[in-house]
């Protein structure tokens, strides 16, 4: 797997869920992967689509073993 970074946004709220994702992505090199942990709701619904709109590749969105927590994998 390519070099990756993980951020846990499960305790964050709008707009910081989006802000922290954007800032983390801006710090990655091309080809590197960001793993974002979010709970259900706005962040889970909109982080994948906004990442795609901005030209990033959303590799997967999966449910983790932790109740209500999802993992979004984004490649720069």
């Amino acid at each position: 797997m390519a070099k990756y970074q993980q951020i846990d946004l499960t305790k964050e709220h709008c707009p910081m869920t989006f802000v922290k994702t954007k800032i983390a992505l801006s710090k990655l090199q091309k080809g590197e992967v960001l793993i974002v942990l979010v709970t259900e709701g706005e962040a889970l619904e909109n982080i994948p689509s906004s990442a795609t709109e901005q030209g990033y590749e959303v590799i997967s969105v999966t449910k983790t073993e932790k109740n209500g927590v999802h993992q979004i994998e984004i490649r720069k």
Partner: protein
Amino acid sequence: MNEQKKLSIISFSGDFDKLTAVFTLATGAAAVGYEVNLFFTFWGLDAIKIEQGRSPVGKGFLPRIFGLLMGGLKSSPVSRLNFSGVSPHIFRYMMRKNNVATLEELVEAAKELGINFYACEMAMHILGLEKKDFIPEVKDIIGVTSFLKIADGGQTLFI
């Protein structure tokens, strides 16, 4: 990729809650790929002063009195139930307790996201403020026509 979307906000109020709305919308939009322009005018200029507390910033007697009474970001009042300045402290406490970004955190995020800050030339003139009184992130001092050109083709809000 599609043409970049754009959000421009006229930040008129120096109130804590309204500034929180300005910076929440601005950072959220910038984070999902919008170009964001913030045009600070009148009391909104308090948000971008270097001096964040109450300080006699400004040229001339009356502007300095206004500066002392209004202060900067850290002394911004809540628009309702301000209780002589106690409420902003309560709000900051409640925001931290509930893991919601505080106004100061949102302003820092706005800087990091490269949001464009502009100051209103006319309001600066009335309040005796100069570019050196503002944070270095203020990109330019502009008037109405320049703002309209910058905002053209996007969404504009007045807060």
